[in-house]
């Protein structure tokens, strides 16, 4: 996305699309506001209907789930890394796919969960998505697992075992992705079946 100010200053940022593939007429982007960001405070607090934004895309064909895939799918999200995984979940629904999906979603506190209601609905429907939250800082009252990072026990207990040969998609901050992908490999998953996307600020400085 390119934003250009009245004085000609422009800034370019990359955002993940949240809407399903081939969804017509609307592109949904999820933008996390970075307190000292240059663009995200504008997009999350000031942008108004009628404002013009320049978009180019979609770009990137690697971190993608295709509805022709029928194998088990393991999604692992850290924080806002849920965004491209949500697009996969929505694509699964809109394609009528029954591919078995599991989502392990690591988030600091319950209030920080994105799309909570929609995820709940996906886990309550026919051919449900198996959904596990892992809270790293504060968990809801009576939550079975004490707050903490994703670890080998959790991976073993709630994700597809490696003998089912799932394709795994891991998205989040770099430290999260390195840790989660390492745990999957330790649990016997083939690195070739693990696709990763590391999230972080992508602004260019011109």
């Amino acid at each position, binding site marked *: 996305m390119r934003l250009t100010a009245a004085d000609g200053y422009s800034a370019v940022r990359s955002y993940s699309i949240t809407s399903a593939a081939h969804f017509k007429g609307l592109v949904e982007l999820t933008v996390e506001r970075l307190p000292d960001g240059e663009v995200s405070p504008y997009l999350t607090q000031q942008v108004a209907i009628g404002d013009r934004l320049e978009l*180019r895309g979609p*770009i990137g064909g*690697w*971190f993608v789930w295709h509805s022709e895939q029928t194998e088990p799918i393991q999604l692992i999200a850290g924080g806002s890394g849920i965004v491209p995984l949500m697009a996969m979940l929505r694509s699964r629904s809109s394609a009528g796919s029954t591919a078995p999906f599991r989502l392990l979603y690591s988030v600091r506190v319950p209030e920080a969960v994105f799309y909570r209601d929609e995820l709940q609905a996906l886990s309550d429907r026919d051919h449900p998505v198996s959904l596990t939250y892992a809270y790293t800082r504060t968990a809801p009252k009576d939550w079975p697992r004490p707050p903490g990072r994703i670890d080998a026990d959790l991976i073993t207990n709630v994700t597809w075992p490696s003998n089912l040969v799932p394709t795994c998609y891991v998205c989040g901050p*770099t430290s999260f992705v390195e840790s989660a992908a390492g745990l999957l490999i330790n649990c016997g998953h083939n690195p070739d079946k693990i696709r990763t996307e*590391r999230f972080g600020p992508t602004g*260019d400085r011109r």
Partner: protein
Amino acid sequence: MSSDTYDYLDGNAAAGELSKIFAMDITAAEGQCAHCGATKRFAEARLYMQCPGIVARCAACDHVLLRFVNVGQRVFLDLRGMTYFSLDTSQLQ
């Protein structure tokens, strides 16, 4: 350049910038590291963006694979860190 400081992203984050010059998606393209010979998808490369341009390094050996920089109305692309870069042309048809 320590790899445990997590100051890198991955090749996915370069897709937008590199789509200015490549007609095809480069994140799924396969490249061979000229240093260690590892053949990986560009999405798997380690991407350093806290510099005037973009530097992609091999996820296996950390050797520089690609450098890309904008200077005014000109872009510079250095691909000598790869012995080849292989793209799927079916998406053009």
